[in-house]
């Protein structure tokens, strides 16, 4: 893979629950890296913090206190830039034995700072595809106009006619049926699959350096999903754009991702090449990844109508995160040797093979 494009270092994004008077630790120390032309798949269940990570990168976090720690190094075509430049000036945290108990943040100031940093990048260097395609398009504006808007904002083509041609070209590349007709349609008249293709065209029209796709296939029918996945695969081969692909559907990730990061309870449990992370059961893997893969009905399960292997317990509540390893409560590979360490201290991301890191005491030196 090419030179690093995006390096996220212990990103921390918190929200605050007024009824429980406690922090919701949506993203609690996430470290990820993405090279040029690489597709990094981020897998995780609801509440694992994957979507909040994407919003933190693009500075679209609305609720308070929002991003309170970490650095995001973005190597755009110019030099290197920290998207959370001098965050420390706007935030100070008070910790009691390793846990953040108080945050005071100049939210208005930080919001202005983020706008200044992200204004030249949003839509131009970084594009985003969101989950619900029909709602992501402006219902009051024709689909074509929403694509030409991006083209005229972020590409050298400024003329209306030229922009229209370029937009139609993109609609053809995403294989939308009868592009000329769809150009003048309003979003409510398009099916889910068509809308998602238009959104993809809109995101790629400005030829960004980084594409963030947050659950691009969720909510679509199986047949449409497989087409969108096929389309993304073709575009990846054709354009080779670096993509942060976020999904809870491991099948989509396995189809598209070069590397995979598995997130749980707001932090990365395992990060490595797709072949290793999603490979057959017996390669070294984080207990959560193993359990996640096992809970998907495999051919063998289905044929002999066997019971699905289940992860006991519930998805973690981001308010009362446990002291030790986040997966400890539901982990089925806890051995006596590591039990107390798992319960008390959180393991660090250990490199067990080149490019393959796991956060688990079983694999720590």
């Amino acid at each position, binding site marked *: 893979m090419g030179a690093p494009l995006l390096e996220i270092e212990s990103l921390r994004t918190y929200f605050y629950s*007024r*009824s*429980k*008077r*406690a922090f919701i630790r949506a993203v609690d120390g996430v470290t990820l890296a993405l090279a040029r032309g690489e597709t990094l798949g981020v897998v995780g269940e609801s509440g694992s913090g994957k979507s909040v990570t994407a919003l933190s990168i693009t500075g679209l976090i609305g609720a308070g*206190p929002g991003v309170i720690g970490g650095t995001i190094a973005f190597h755009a075509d110019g030099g290197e830039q920290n998207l959370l430049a001098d965050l420390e000036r706007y935030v100070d945290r008070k910790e009691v034995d390793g846990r953040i*108990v*108080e*945050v*005071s943040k100049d939210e208005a100031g930080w919001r202005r700072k983020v706008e200044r940093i992200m204004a030249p990048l949003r839509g131009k260097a970084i594009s985003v595809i969101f989950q619900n395609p029909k709602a992501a398009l402006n219902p009051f504006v024709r689909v074509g106009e929403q694509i030409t808007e991006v083209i005229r904002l972020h590409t050298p083509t400024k003329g209306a006619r030229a922009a229209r041609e370029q937009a139609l070209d993109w609609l053809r590349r995403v294989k939308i049926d009868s592009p000329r007709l769809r150009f003048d349609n309003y979003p409510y008249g398009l099916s889910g699959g068509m809308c998602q293709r238009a959104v993809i065209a809109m995101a790629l029209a400005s030829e960004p350096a980084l594409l963030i796709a947050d659950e691009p296939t969720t909510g679509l029918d199986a047949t449409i999903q497989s087409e969108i996945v096929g389309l993304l695969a073709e575009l990846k081969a054709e354009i080779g754009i670096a993509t942060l692909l976020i999904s809870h559907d491991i099948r989509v990730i396995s189809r598209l991702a070069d590397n995979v990061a598995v997130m749980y309870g707001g932090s990365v449990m395992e990060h490595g090449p797709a072949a290793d992370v999603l490979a057959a059961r017996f390669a070294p893997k984080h207990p959560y990844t193993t359990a996640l893969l096992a809970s998907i009905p495999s051919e063998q399960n289905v044929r002999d109508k066997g019971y699905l292997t289940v992860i006991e317990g519930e998805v973690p509540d981001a308010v009362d995160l446990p002291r030790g390893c986040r997966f400890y409560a539901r982990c089925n590979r806890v051995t006596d040797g590591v039990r107390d360490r798992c319960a008390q201290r959180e393991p660090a991301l250990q490199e067990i093979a080149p490019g393959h890191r796991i956060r688990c005491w079983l694999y720590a030196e």
Partner: protein
Amino acid sequence: MKRYTQITDASRPASDVSPWKSAGTLDLACVGYGLIVVVAVLVSYVLGVFAWLPYDPEHISFGLLNAPPGSAGHLLGTDFLGRDILSRLIVATQAYFLPGLVAIAISLVAGTALGALAGYRGGGVEVLATYFNNLVDSFPRLVLILLVIAVFRVDIYYIMIIVGVTGVPVVASLVAGKIAFLRQKHFIEAAHVLGLPAHVIVLKHILWYHCAPLLVIRATIGMGEVILIETSLSYLGFGVQEPTPSWGNMVQAGANYFFQGKFWPSTAPALAILFTILGFHLLGDGLNGILEDRSGK
């Protein structure tokens, strides 16, 4: 600088926090002020009924015309006929209190019934209900009341019946809207499939659990509107006539003295109107912020 602090796990409130504890300070302040106003109105109504007043509201004393507040034992001074303003203000609540309750009762009961029927039954009933709502909303309330006064020369109770009827559309659309929201979440169908009889679904689940806070809020704001209408009518010379006091006709009576620089006889009742209506509005909005926005979603 916005500060967020996490309290230690031990002292965290029980799993479910009642809406009142997690309410914002502004909402609580609004509700607090509103409750003070409600109590004040209730007390002055009772005082008026039993005539426990500092002075006889209709006792005229020529020696003390337009006396400023605090003079000769009159806490709020006297009006252009020397009558004690405080007593008259207290008695004036009679003019709108009971009639107001009549109006609110009509709009709540009829509105809920119409809204529930239209929302739950849907189809033709809903079309009829919408038509009725639009029809009643077409008339400015005051113009409709003036029409009735011109034709029937009626007292305040008849007027309040009209105010009640014109209040029905708002309540009906609130209830129907809430039912549409619950239907959207398949909530009504789930109860229906379970085998719960229709009246249990409508009365218990929809009206009691989901519409009760809505109706309380509507009642407080409705009372504010009633006071506005009653005082406006008595200002225009309809409804309660001299010498029985109403905040509206007190303002009107003090008008010409107002322009000679004696503001107080006209301003005292005006301030009474202002703070009372403000009280009911803030009470309604405060309750809405606490009860509706949080759990209604």
